[in-house]
């Protein structure tokens, strides 16, 4: 399989090299033709900076980018014809109609005159905007603008599509429609470079993911392989209910009690459930059952979970699985908050 993108030792300083802010530090990776490549990282990790360099919007301080065999520093022109960009903010022209936005982009990318109208119509119908084609975009909802922004990015049928956070802030229906579209485009042969915070989205869509942290690539692999590499973040998820009034008091101290069970590294309350991280779920299961029986609690549900991509992401970025945890009453009020990679709470 050939590479759609080859990045070698890409570095970006904002300001003077060595003195400014180092946003991307000697990053190297490949994106294969026809894959959905996820680019994950916390805020400020260098995701958008990297993507802007890949789309010629930002000049690298050092390093080399080759896209479809063309060195971007010397020969970006042929690359641009075959590249589409969906930025984080939907950069559509609010004063124009949806139809005019698409026609403008089609003309900019020199889509043959005879095909412009047909492609614009097809995309508007695909994205459920055909009925609104003559409405100015300033009257569109966020989801509609997002869909139009994606339509504008693909009207010239690019072979490589960059998408920066395509779904955050959208309703579930719009987000699902966009994810379906990503799958469809990929099935038709489009290589997709997906920058996202949505770890589950990356898990569902990406053939491979790169995790970038502090400007450096921390890991690149398939989601499943990454999860395999982090078996220690397996967990048991349990939902408990009190049988009577007295046992309801037990719930108040449940966070501490569950975290104190042998083998539990971290306990995290997730809605009406508790997730207990452990290296050995099978050994923990009977202990949880024993605890519930001895304290008059009814087990509503009990399951074992492998590490999620989110767990892997948190481990790699030093944010540590289970850092959203509950403090005991003695330690202060119950609150949620990150503990910034400290090992506090681990046993």
């Amino acid at each position, binding site marked *: 399989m050939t590479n759609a993108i080859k990045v070698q030792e890409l570095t970006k300083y904002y300001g003077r090299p060595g003195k400014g802010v180092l946003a991307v530090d000697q990053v190297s990776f490949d994106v294969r033709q026809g894959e959905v490549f996820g680019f994950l990282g916390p805020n400020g990790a260098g995701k958008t900076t990297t993507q802007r360099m890949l789309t010629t919007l*930002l000049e690298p301080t050092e390093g080399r980018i080759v896209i479809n065999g063309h060195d971007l520093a010397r020969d970006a022109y042929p690359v641009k014809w075959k590249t589409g960009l969906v930025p984080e*903010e939907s*950069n559509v022209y609010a004063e124009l109609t949806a139809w005019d936005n698409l026609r403008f982009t089609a003309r900019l990318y*020199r889509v043959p005159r005879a095909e412009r109208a047909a492609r614009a119509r097809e995309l508007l119908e695909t994205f459920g905007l055909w009925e609104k084609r003559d409405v100015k975009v300033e009257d569109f909802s966020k989801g509609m603008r997002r869909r139009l922004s994606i339509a504008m990015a693909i009207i010239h049928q690019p072979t490589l599509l960059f998408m920066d956070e395509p779904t955050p802030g959208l309703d579930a229906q719009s987000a699902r429609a966009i994810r379906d579209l990503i799958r469809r485009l990929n099935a038709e042969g489009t290589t997709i470079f997906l920058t996202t915070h949505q770890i589950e989205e990356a898990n569902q869509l990406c053939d491979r993911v790169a995790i970038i942290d502090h400007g450096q690539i921390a890991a690149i692999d398939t989601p499943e392989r990454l999860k395999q590499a982090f078996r220690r973040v397996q967990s048991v998820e349990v939902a408990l209910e009190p049988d009577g009034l007295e046992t309801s008091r037990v719930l108040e101290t449940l966070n501490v009690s569950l975290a104190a069970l042998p083998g539990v590294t971290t306990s995290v309350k997730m809605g009406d459930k508790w997730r207990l991280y452990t290296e050995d779920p099978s050994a923990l299961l009977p202990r949880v059952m024993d605890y519930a029986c001895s304290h008059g609690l009814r087990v509503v549900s009990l399951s074992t979970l492998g590490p999620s991509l989110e767990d892997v992401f948190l481990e790699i970025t030093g944010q540590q699985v289970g850092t959203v945890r509950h403090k005991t009453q003695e330690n202060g009020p119950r609150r949620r908050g990150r503990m910034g990679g400290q090992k506090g709470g681990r046993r």
Partner: protein
Amino acid sequence: MKQGWLRLRDELTQAWTVAAKDIKVYYLKPGMLMFGVMMPFFLFFSFSVRREMAVGQGVARLLALTIFFTAAAAGPFIIPLERRLGTYDRLLAAPMSLLTLLLGKAAVGAFFAIAVSVIALTVGVAAFGVSITQPWLLAAAMLLGSFSFSTLGLIFGSIPTHNPGEVQMPSTLLRWGLLFISGVFIPLAEMVPMARAVAYLSPLTYAQDLMNHAVPGVGSLSPWLDLAMLLVSGVLFLIPSLLMHRRSRQLGY
């Protein structure tokens, strides 16, 4: 890969596409109307009303002011606004050269200036019976003047910022400076030698002189020199714009 004239054809079409879109989107925006339409008329009436001046001279002055302020208004207004909205990235990522993009943007200001000055000229001819001494020279003056001043505006539009407000201040300062050193309000022939030497630094001086040749028929310099200076300044003004766009690309704007 597209080569030669095919590439040129594509680039010209793209420049026109950018210009046509901007005309549709921005011409009726309050910022454009204020800086591009109201400003030249306001200045004209401030400095010309109740002063002894032939109608032909008045129309020539109004045309020079209109071309100057209207053409230079587009760049500093549109580009920072597009940078803030993210739509400028769409243009920068498109398969066209930076020069093509800038020429498209320059055309926006130039067409705007030509349209507004044609209205001013029509009013001058219809209401005051002004006769045009050299119509072709007037057309050339409007064309080259609007191009030159539009590329002047691009310099300020190219300043790396997302805030149009940060651009308007230096842009207005420079335009006013070029206006007051030029031969618009004091004819070149009446200037002391030092002031005249300074006036030659302002491209507006040449535009005003051309208008004087074209409308009342009384210019001070050779019209060919005026045309050449406007053309050269228009091309030269593109250089800082190109350099600042490259700088913006390094800084991330």
